[in-house]
């Protein structure tokens, strides 16, 4: 029905048109020749009129929605136009017929149809070109029709497969542009071309024509055109890769992409880096950005101007002269002046910011994972500690990205970032702070200024405010009046590009900053507040200056600076010289728990300065000449108190369901700074021994019959001081052994030395114990050593000997001789060996050499090594008994008349037969056969028994007495002497052992089995009274 109405309307209209024709109107268009028509032309025009009317009718038909009718009219018009040579209208009608054709077959995709359209449109274009008339070309041109037709065809064909054809058409259209007179026509043409290229997927082509459009806009001197230019240029930024971050959604995916590769351990493949910098055509990019800047300035859009200038400066500073850089900087500032304060811009300008490092927790604030199941919860946690290098983490350097960092609510943290200003002007960063999107971090802004071409590492700090993960993508910077966010990753990829030669310059390297390895951003998590112990040494944190061996108490004050009480704490020692810490008041700390926030506890620690290394004794002595201060200990040699402490297992207000996650504990490392000065230095230590011959008497001074003879002492009751001068029970003489320590004092103070020996207290003799005390007080006066002098200190040593001479001490020898090493004996060997060592140790431990310096400090000398060295050489002589012990005594039955009342004890009268006994004890475990002989010497040392001038007569056998002594037994041999001359005599017993064995040989330090072993007893004095 609609069609009927339309048809009837058209009929009426056509009638009207045809009727109007009678009036003789000539249908004339501006494109027709405007010259006055000649008669011929009037006729021609009349003929054309019909065709033109048909074309117009066709147009109306098309408008009315009847393509079939339109087509019919167009066909007529085409015929008429062709006949009259009316090319312009022919092309118009042809165009109309294509329209009708397409409208008729709307929605159909037919290659034949497409070919038809292409063919007809090429015709259209051809005819439009033909209709070009030179004479009115100045005024109006058919060119625009031709271009329009070209664009229409291009748009019709605009598909990827036909890209070549379309491009060709558009190129032709673009060629036509230069013939267009009106600039706005050209503008429209370029807009259309750009759009078509864009549709075709030719981004760069589209961008090129868009830029042409922008330039045409810019030629118009008004702000609206400038705005348009700016907007058009903004569209080209994607193709030229200079997008603002605000507009580009791609950059988001770009950063995500990088982000994922970050998580993969940062090792990006070079190819993927290359792809980041694809199509970086710096010349073009700079031009485009400069044009955007120009248009934005003209358009009065300060933000866009700022953004463009920022991008230009940041990306292309190496290509811009210093003047140009300053110009851009002032453009930035000027733009910012017209912006409200606090404006944010998505595009960062300067400086370049990269992550430098995350400082580890100071040793004082270390966090230790807590194992709730164990009493010692810190054991087995990651060995972070004060040492950066641990051999265990060395192998795992590949998964650095998995590094964990724990921050604590309310405790400030620091992150180091490096800023670079590669430009030639001073850069003032008004504020910079870490930008954290997770919202649980308060960052503290700081302001920095950077000199031209300089880089600087700054510390940014902040406080985590609530529990959760923290990510730090970058920094927020307020610079050039605008707030921007600088993402670390972008700089990282920029630097990576620089190493690949894809980016113009590395901003950090050109500022002279060292190359930095890529910092992986650790996973940062924030944990609830933990207690925080802060330590300081009472009386100053400086190193305590101690002389070697000095003992001093140090008070360490621990305060809880956190907001959570310390509920558990444990002290251990680490570092070197741990044994110099004599005592730590563990209990004081334990009793102070829980340590409330703000509370403080003071721990006494007793230190004993260690021995300085004896590596350079020469140096030490040479230094002592110069009155030296001694060697200052290096920092590494200090012992450290390691305090593991932790808060409550569950933070208050937390539901017990979270029990599995225990808040970590912490570790506080308190280095005990000790500076050890050289104190007294040992020069020499040696063992001295004195032997005082015994006087012969009726009761032998040796307690042979006492069972535990080695510990038994006979004390001369008259003199307490003699308590250490003891009878050697095995030699039968009075012996005194002294340890002589020669010490020099290289310091500048006076030392006083006192020696105390703790005497062995035997439990069964109470009287001895009191003597011990007295002796300790009495016996050893203080030795004073002035500065730069040396002195000798004598330390009396107690006698002690092992009761039995045994093969065990000569294990070496016995093994070499492959004799007498049975299993049982090896046991006892071990035991006696241990006994020997133990007794040396025991001896040493009882000797204490204390000193007091002029500086009012006191300490103890470490003489252990010195004594050990001194003893070791002669240990055998000291400790081992002789195989045979000889003793003399007066025979008991004659003593009564022999001793006068007033004579001293043990004296003998001359001209009197004095019966005596020699006692020989076998200290070995084997029977010893020997030949015993006794000699008597006078004061001059001459033998007075034998020879011409013998002054002593004797009865019994005195030489070549063959005796056998059973093991550990003694024999007695009686004889009598008759002294003819009163005076001092000396009796000496000696024996030649006949059947030597290995032990005896070893003791005698001889090797050859044939050599006889000669044993000589200690001399006994005999005082013979009487008148000459």
């Amino acid at each position, binding site marked *: 029905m609609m069609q009927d109405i339309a048809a009837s309307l058209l009929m009426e209209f056509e009638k009207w048109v045809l009727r109007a024709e009678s009036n003789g109107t000539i249908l004339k268009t501006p494109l027709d020749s405007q010259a006055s028509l000649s008669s011929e032309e009037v006729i021609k025009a009349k003929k054309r009129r019909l065709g033109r009317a048909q074309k117009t009718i066709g147009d109306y038909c098309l408008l009315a929605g009847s393509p079939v009718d339109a087509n019919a009219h167009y066909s007529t018009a085409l015929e008429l136009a062709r006949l009259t040579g009316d090319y312009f209208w022919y092309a118009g009608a042809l165009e109309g017929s294509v329209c009708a054709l397409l409208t008729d077959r709307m929605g159909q995709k037919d290659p034949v149809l497409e070919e038809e359209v292409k063919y007809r449109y090429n015709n259209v274009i051809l005819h439009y070109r033909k209709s070009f008339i030179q004479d009115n070309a100045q005024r109006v041109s058919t060119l625009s029709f031709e271009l329009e037709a070209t664009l229409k065809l291009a748009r019709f064909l605009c598909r990827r497969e036909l890209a070549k054809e379309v491009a060709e058409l558009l190129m032709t259209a673009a060629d036509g542009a230069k013939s267009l007179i009106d600039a706005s026509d050209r503008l429209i043409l370029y807009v259309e071309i750009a759009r078509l290229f864009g549709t075709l997927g030719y981004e760069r082509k589209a961008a090129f024509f868009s830029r042409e459009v922008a330039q045409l806009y810019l030629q118009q001197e008004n702000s609206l055109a400038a705005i348009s230019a700016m907007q058009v240029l903004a569209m080209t930024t994607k193709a030229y890769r200079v997008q603002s971050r605000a507009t580009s959604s791609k950059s988001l995916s770009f950063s995500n992409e990088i982000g994922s590769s970050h998580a993969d351990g940062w090792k990006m493949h*070079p190819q993927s880096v*290359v792809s980041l910098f694809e199509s970086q055509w710096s010349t073009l990019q700079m031009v485009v950005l400069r044009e955007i800047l120009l248009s934005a300035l003209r358009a009065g859009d300060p933000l866009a101007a700022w953004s463009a200038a920022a991008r230009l400066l940041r990306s292309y500073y190496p290509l811009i002269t210093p003047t140009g850089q300053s110009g851009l900087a002032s453009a930035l500032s000027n733009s910012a002046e017209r912006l409200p304060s606090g404006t944010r811009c998505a595009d960062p300008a300067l400086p370049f910011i990269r992550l430098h490092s995350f400082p580890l927790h100071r040793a004082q604030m270390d966090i230790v994972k807590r194992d709730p199941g164990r009493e010692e919860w810190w054991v087995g946690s990651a060995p972070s500690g004060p040492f950066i290098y641990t051999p265990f983490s060395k192998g795992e350097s590949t998964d650095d990205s998995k590094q964990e960092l724990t921050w604590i609510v309310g405790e400030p943290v620091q992150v180091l970032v490096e800023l670079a200003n590669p430009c030639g002007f001073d850069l003032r960063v008004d504020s910079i702070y870490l930008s954290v999107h997770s919202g649980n971090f308060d960052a503290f802004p700081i302001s920095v200024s950077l000199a031209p071409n300089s880089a600087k590492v700054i510390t940014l700090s902040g406080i985590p405010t609530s529990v959760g993960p923290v990510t730090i993508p970058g920094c927020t910077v307020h610079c050039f009046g605008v707030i921007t966010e600088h993402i670390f990753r972008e700089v990282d990829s920029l630097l990576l590009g620089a190493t690949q030669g894809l980016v113009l310059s590395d901003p950090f390297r050109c500022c002279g900053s060292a190359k930095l390895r890529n910092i992986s951003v650790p996973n940062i998590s924030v944990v609830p507040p933990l207690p925080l112990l802060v330590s300081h040494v009472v009386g100053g944190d400086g190193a305590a200056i101690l002389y070697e061996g000095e003992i001093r108490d140090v008070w360490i004050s621990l305060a809880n600076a956190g907001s959570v009480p310390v509920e558990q704490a444990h002290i251990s020692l680490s570092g070197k010289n741990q044994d110099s810490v004599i005592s730590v008041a563990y209990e004081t700390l334990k009793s102070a728990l829980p340590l409330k926030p703000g509370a403080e506890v003071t721990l006494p620690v007793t230190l004993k300065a260690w021995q300085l290394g004896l590596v350079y004794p020469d140096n030490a002595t040479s230094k002592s000449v110069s009155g030296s201060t001694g060697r200052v200990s290096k920092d590494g040699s200090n012992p450290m108190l390691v305090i593991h402490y932790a808060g409550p297992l569950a933070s208050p207000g937390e539901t017990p369901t979270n029990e599995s996650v225990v808040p970590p504990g912490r570790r506080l490392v308190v280095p005990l700074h000790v500076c050890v000065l050289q104190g007294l230095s040992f020069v020499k230590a040696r063992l001295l021994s004195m032997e005082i011959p015994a006087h012969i008497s009726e009761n032998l001074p040796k307690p042979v019959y006492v069972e535990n003879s080695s510990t038994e002492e006979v004390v001369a009751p008259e003199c307490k001081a003699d308590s250490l001068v003891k009878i050697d029970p095995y030699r039968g003489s009075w012996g005194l052994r002294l340890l002589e320590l020669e010490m020099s004092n290289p310091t500048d103070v006076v030392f006083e030395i006192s020696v105390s020996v703790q005497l062995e207290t035997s439990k069964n003799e109470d009287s001895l114990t009191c003597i011990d005390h007295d002796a300790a007080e009495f016996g050893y006066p203080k030795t004073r050593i002035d500065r730069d002098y040396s002195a000798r200190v004598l330390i009396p040593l107690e006698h002690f000997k092992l009761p039995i001479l045994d093969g065990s001490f000569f294990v070496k020898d016995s093994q070499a001789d492959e004799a007498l090493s049975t299993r049982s004996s090896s046991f006892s060997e071990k035991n006696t060996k241990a006994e020997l060592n133990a007794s040396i140790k025991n001896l040493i431990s009882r000797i204490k050499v204390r000193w007091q310096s002029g500086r009012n400090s006191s300490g103890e000398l470490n003489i252990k090594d010195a004594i050990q060295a001194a003893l070791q050489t002669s240990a055998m002589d000291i400790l081992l008994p002789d195989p045979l012990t000889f003793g003399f005594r007066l025979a008991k039955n004659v003593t009564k008349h022999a001793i006068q009342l007033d004579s001293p004890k043990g004296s003998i009268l001359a001209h009197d037969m004095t019966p005596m006994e020699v006692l020989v004890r076998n200290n070995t475990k084997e029977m010893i056969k020997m030949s015993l002989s006794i000699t008597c010497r006078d004061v001059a040392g001459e033998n007075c028994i034998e020879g011409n001038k013998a002054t002593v007569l004797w009865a019994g056998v005195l030489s070549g007495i063959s005796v056998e002594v059973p093991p550990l037994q003694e024999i007695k041999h009686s004889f009598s002497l008759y002294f003819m001359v009163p005076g001092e005599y000396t009796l000496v017993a000696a024996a030649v052992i006949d059947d030597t064995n290995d032990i005896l040989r070893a003791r005698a330090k001889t090797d050859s089995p044939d050599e006889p072993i000669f044993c000589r007893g200690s001399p006994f004095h005999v005082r013979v009274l009487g008148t000459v």
Partner: protein
Amino acid sequence: MASTACFIIVSRNDIPIYEAEVGSAVKKEDAAHQHQFILHAALDIVQDLAWTTSAMFLKAVDRFNDLVVSVYVTAGHILHIFKLFYTLTFLLFSQRGQSHKSTYKRSSFFVSLTAHIIHTRLMLLHDSRNDDGIKSFFQEVHELYIKVYYCILSTVLHLDAYLILLNPLYLPGSRITSSHFDTKVRALARKYL
């Protein structure tokens, strides 16, 4: 000699690695920029066209305002040469009795190098229609381009393979900074264009 001629070598990553205004016309900066813009835009056309033909020389692929863009596409040739070099050096070093460890280091380096320098485009924007001259120009420059790589590579190989890493020319897609190359190209432009 053509009045306008802008010659550019574009790397595989669409980054210009060499650019020269070789025309006789007085150079203006704006014009030079415009030339580069035209060449940049022509990459879209070249990209499609290069796949439709086996010819390396694509004449007059694009035009704008009487300026015509001709392109010479190099494709995949250098790849094999590098592999050859790699094998040679491997043999060389093992014959010299170098330790195996260092040989492996070198060889792995060469493997990574082989992936680059393919599909480089030499582009010329010109106003003359001297197709033969342009084609000869392109061929000569291409030869020169390869030679530059060869020369340095071979000398470097005899000295020390590690030097390659330090040479900016061998970073993928980096700019050609050799002045020797520049002089040669300009001479060729005078000869053929």
